[in-house]
């Protein structure tokens, strides 16, 4: 290798050095440490009096009914919540893509909730959904509908959280809006000439053309919902009776309230595996529903 080549290499490593340091310090070392702790009975990180317990943490988790509830709740948010939130984003994006007067103002209004800190949003939602004094029950009451304990019933708390996610989904809406803007108009014109109705145009032109954006939003939202914490904590503190208790909330409680750090790391490992499997499955199956313009197949 000549001197110029070495210089180029040195420059290359110099430029990626910040990333490598960040990756090593903030991901690699914590990850390896977490794997180590997952097989110990450490009460707190850094504990000196820990013992190696093999797979005990993992086997104990499968007998923990609250951990089971946390998994089921999280799977609900992933397999029901993600499609609903994604559809909600798409619906909003299509409405905001309409060519009507003052649409820029509407776009601003629909994006505003995303800019509000989630803590403030959740407080507003708690007031809206309060069974006694909430505006929602007040409106329903005018139609003779009895008060519903939205935040106090196991059947309603998860849908309320999903609805909250739609409310703060401005970023996803923007991605869809950008994708919708990128669909060539001539495709719609050609479809119309071929006699395609609005529904047919949506399924045969719009959806395929924005499918890369759909995949992106699906992957991001799936990972987010697997790790949902703030909404569950602030809206109902994981209740009632653990009905909104999510996986990451359980990890937090296990580590910081129950002081079972080793167990919490075992939970983290399982979560890592679950996200990996679902995301890989999503990406693997994506070639069946994602259309990349200009991509050569076969």
């Amino acid at each position, binding site marked *: 290798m000549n001197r110029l*080549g070495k210089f180029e290499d040195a420059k290359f490593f110099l430029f990626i050095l910040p990333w490598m340091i960040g990756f*090593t310090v903030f991901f690699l*070392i914590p990850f390896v440490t977490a794997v180590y702790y997952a097989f110990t009975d450490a009460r707190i990180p850094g504990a000196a*009096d820990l013992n190696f317990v093999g797979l005990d943490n993992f086997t104990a988790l499968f007998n923990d009914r609250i951990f089971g509830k946390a998994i089921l709740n999280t799977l609900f948010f992933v397999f029901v919540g993600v499609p609903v939130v994604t559809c909600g984003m798409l619906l909003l994006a299509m409405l905001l893509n309409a060519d009507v007067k003052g649409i820029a103002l509407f776009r601003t209004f629909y994006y505003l909730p995303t800019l509000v800190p989630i803590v403030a949003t959740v407080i507003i939602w708690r007031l809206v959904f309060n069974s006694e004094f909430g505006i929602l029950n007040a409106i329903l009451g005018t139609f003779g509908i009895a008060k519903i304990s939205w*935040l106090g*019933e196991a059947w309603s708390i998860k849908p309320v959280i999903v609805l909250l996610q739609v409310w703060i989904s401005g970023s996803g809406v923007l991605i869809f809006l950008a994708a919708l803007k990128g669909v060539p108009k001539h495709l719609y014109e050609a479809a119309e000439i071929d006699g395609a109705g609005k529904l047919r145009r949506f399924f045969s032109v719009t959806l395929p053309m924005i499918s890369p954006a759909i995949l992106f939003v699906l992957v991001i939202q799936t990972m987010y919902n697997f790790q949902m914490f703030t909404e569950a904590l602030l809206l109902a503190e994981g209740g009632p009776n653990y009905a909104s208790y999510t996986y990451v909330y359980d990890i937090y409680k296990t580590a910081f309230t129950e002081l079972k750090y080793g167990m919490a790391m075992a939970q983290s490992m399982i979560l890592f595996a679950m996200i990996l499997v679902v995301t890989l499955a999503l990406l693997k199956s994506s070639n069946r529903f994602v259309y990349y313009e200009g991509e050569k197949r076969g």
Partner: protein
Amino acid sequence: MKERKGYVWTLTTVLMLSIVLAGCSGNSNVESQPNSSGDNKPTNQSTGEEKPLEDVTITYSQWGTAEELQRTQELLDAFMAANPHITVKLEGKDWGTYWDGLTAGASGGVLPDVMKTSFAYVSKYAELGIFKDLDGLLADHDFDLSAIADGMLSMHQFDGKQVSLPIDANVIMFYYNKGLFDDPATNPKQATYPSAEPTWEEVLDIATKMTLDTNDRNPGEDGFDRNNIKQWGMSTVPGADLGMFEPILFSNDAKLINDDGTVALDTPEAREVLDFFIDATAQGINTSPAQIEGMGGVQNLAITTGKVAMNLAGSWNVAHYTDAAIDYGITHVPKFKTTQTVIQPAGIAMSATTKHEEAAYQLMSWLAGPEGQSELAKQGFAIPSNSQAADAYLETAGAEFKIFLDAQAYGISAPYSVKKTDLVFTHGTQILRDPLAGNGDVDAAIKDLQAALQ
């Protein structure tokens, strides 16, 4: 190409080593972590006695609101004036962050020298070995433990050792909004104030009269609209704070948890108590969790909303009632059979790894001893745990608060184990809050709670 690979490996190895070494160097002054006995120290720490008059700076950490921290700062200022060679830095956090911070601090070996403890969390954190065993220090300095009630001391012990010293004697009481009782518009049935040691039967009768729908009808009257209540007679949400609810169970010969760690709520005596509140909530006389949520979310402060006549609360809540400018009265916790209450003393503990043991002890003994307790009493917001400061408290707070001292005699003996802390602060609220308000199957909830504790 081979040469290039070697270059890459060299650079990567150097990088990794520098990161690892940099990471290790930060911890070099603390080589060991606290063990379960809580008595080991960093190996480079001086084991010799500190000279008493050597200038030293220590940290004191506690939870609390801005006002509470300000009051603590005033106490620390008084301590520093009396001990000019010791500087105390106050670190304040809110309740939730405080305990997370303590866990994180314990793991990082950076605990404050002295820290506030809760009666409910003593066992949980003492198990980690982060608290210093105080028995030796207290004996060496002849600290007068007889001035603190045994019941309070026992709540700050772990494995029979004193790991924390009580610094207040907060007690649960029953409060009523006199303004609502005195106004004919909010008390059309002319209900009287509850008596000094009321029964729940008496309170239920008063609460029924004080509960009004939008047409000023009471529960039980024809046409009472349970869906449109404008004023509730009382607010006691058992599932929201089982620790505060525990003396009510005791007053009917029931309890929260058995000695073997199993839930004790399935006895006939306990169910009688639970059913009383479920019925009162179903009738609209007692507030539900959702109603409390809509009124600010704190049942202890329900009477400050002007929509609730009576509520269960702590002695510390009088500061909030004063701030809310309401005219209130205090009685003992209503009884089923016997008058009972629970004393919930906060305490102070020393870090097992402190490098300033003598200074930390001086601060602790001052805060828990007659001088600090008298200063605390003079502030008028907390009841001193040290009986030697009782006079100072009465002088400042006045005769109307003597009831707080009287209530100490009704304190139940119910120390917290790790399991009980989990029951009261984690699983109990999750599982029981709504069933105990009539929303859900109580028997199933108790079984769920039992399973969760296992």
